[in-house]
């Protein structure tokens, strides 16, 4: 028939072979580091395996029942919800404001862009350790500043009290995700046609009207994508909470991801850790489906 279906002479000319070759690193990576642990976690969750008793003995839903009965589970679930929602509301507001600043022309723009991206490019654990010191119970520079300003007389013990600990964890998580969200929103902002911006100016709309009646509605799908990334990164990532508080004090900042790690890896109860970790999966799939559907529906309008 045509030349496209003929067998190429050299292996390097064979599109099927090349496609497989080029995709294999990604496929191998995903199978080895995501697929395999995922399948293992599902298997573990239906056993009562632990580091002390590494036999695969299927117990049905007994492990799930035990985890659900634990009062820490309910706290962690609520904390996860609070953590994800508040952090991402902050992220959306800050990222939209930042993107609006970054799209303008001003002197030193490159420096601001660099500084904005810094929290994102720095390794999570390193960046979070910096915050650990910044929020230290005795040497916190924030406390020092507040003391100098005469606003407090005693140290805040940011990470030592339930309320301030949760606030700190949320703030640091928001600080970490804002750069990613800002870049996503910035891309959306750049994609708004110049004619639209000009039309708004000719039609006589001021800054707030432009912002809330044109810019944000047009950005809605892309903001939804930014939120999706933010929520997934907040729910599935344990670094910030683990480094700052390890879920403490008394589980007041415990989220499902840290609890799964502490129970399964540190406590050795592999089956329970897997069950807690899997509990997040349907939640994330649900959120992803809803957000993507919303984003797509907006686009069709």
């Amino acid at each position, binding site marked *: 028939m045509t030349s496209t279906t003929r067998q190429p002479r050299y292996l390097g000319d064979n599109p099927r072979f090349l496609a497989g070759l080029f995709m294999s690193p990604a496929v191998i990576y995903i199978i080895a580091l995501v697929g395999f642990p995922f399948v293992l976690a599902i298997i573990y969750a239906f056993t009562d395996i632990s580091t002390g008793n590494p036999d695969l003995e299927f117990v049905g839903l007994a492990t799930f029942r035990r985890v659900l009965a634990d009062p820490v589970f309910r706290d962690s679930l609520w904390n996860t919800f609070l953590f994800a929602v508040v952090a991402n509301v902050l992220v959306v507001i800050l990222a939209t404001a930042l993107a609006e600043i970054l799209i303008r022309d001003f002197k030193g723009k490159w420096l601001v862009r660099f500084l904005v991206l810094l929290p994102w490019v720095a390794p999570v654990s390193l960046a979070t350790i910096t915050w650990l010191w910044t929020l230290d119970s005795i040497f916190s520079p924030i406390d020092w500043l507040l003391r100098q300003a005469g606003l407090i007389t005693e140290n805040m013990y940011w990470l030592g009290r339930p309320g301030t600990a949760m606030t700190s964890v949320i703030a640091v998580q928001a600080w970490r995700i804002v750069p990613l969200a800002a870049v996503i929103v910035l891309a959306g902002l750049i994609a708004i*046609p110049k*004619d*639209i911006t*000009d*039309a708004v*100016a*000719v*039609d*006589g*709309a*001021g800054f707030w*009207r432009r912002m809330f*009646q*044109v810019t944000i*509605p*047009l950005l*809605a799908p892309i903001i939804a994508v930014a939120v999706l990334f933010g929520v997934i990164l907040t729910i599935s990532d344990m670094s910030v909470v683990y480094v700052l508080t390890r879920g403490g004090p008394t589980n007041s900042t415990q989220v499902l991801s840290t609890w799964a790690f502490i129970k399964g890896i540190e406590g050795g109860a592999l089956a329970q850790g897997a069950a807690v970790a899997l509990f997040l999966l349907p939640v994330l799939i649900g959120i992803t489906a809803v957000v993507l559907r919303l984003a797509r529906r*907006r686009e*069709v*309008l």
Partner: protein
Amino acid sequence: MPFSTTGGDRVWSAAGDPHSAIVAVVEVRDLRKEFGEVVAVDGVDLRSEEGEFLVLLGPSGCGKTTLLRMIAGLEQPTEGEIRIGGEDVSRLPPRARRIAMVFQSYALYPHMTVANNIAFPLKAQGMDPEARNEKVEWAAGLFGIEGLLQRRPRQLSGGERQRVALARALVREPTVFLLDEPLSNLDAKLRAAARDDLMEFQRRIGITTIYVTHDQVEAMGMGDRIAVMDHGRIRQLGTPEEVYHHPADVFVAQFLGSPPMNLLETPGFLFGFRPEQFLPEGVAADEGTRVPFTFHVNRIEYLGSERFLYGFIREYDETRVIAMLPATVTLPISIDQDHKFSVAKDQLRFFDYDDGAKIAPQPLMR
């Protein structure tokens, strides 16, 4: 029928235009715009007359869009003054200039219904909802889009979008209408209809319009006057007849017309003639006053309604020229042969050898 059949003046005053007493003229004085090193508009003076359809025509990069955007207030001039209705608006933002602009892409707000698109400028003015709805219906009625008010831009055809864009521009009752290549996004068939719509609308409400295009057919067909621009300057401002038949310089002569004017060089000056004026001997009636040339034809293109003959003129260093014969001239022309052609004396145009500007008729030596 896209428009209601009421008389033009009555439709316009029915809306109660409070500014009708003011002379609606755009006047631009010594306007310059530099983008860094690049001079986009290089000292332009321009006056549009009340109710006229003024076209800014030129190749891309000639500064016509920048000039329009400066009139709109979307671009700040480096130097010069812009007056609208006698008032200096150079420092005013677009919304304070009583202008309306229709963009190349129409720039409809995709997330709003047609009704909300048209109402948007009124909302920005702070008009109360009742008066606003009345105004939206009036503007929609003017363009025959009452049935589309609840649709979204995505659900509209190109022509319908144009009408929505016009309605949105018109609803504020501007003194000047600025249009930036509004037809270039439409396919050829739709373009003719949209052009017709636009012309009829403009004539009916009699609003001063400045229209930017690179399409000379649009410019010739629509403009009361045409400003031909190149390199940030206006090379000629005149009626379509003037710019076509009496080009001010070589650039205008060669930019207008398709194919462009043939140009020949002779010691001391240049002269030219339109391809359709270049006729074989025996076809034209006024044989006595015609200037003869020996035309060597290389190639012939049959385009149905006309024939293009490509070749060169023996007497003038074999300069390449094009002749355009209408289909009514059925005389057989053979290729790779010399033919006797001629141009009426009063159809020859003369230009300065150095700066290309139009000069008085000169005697031809040969």
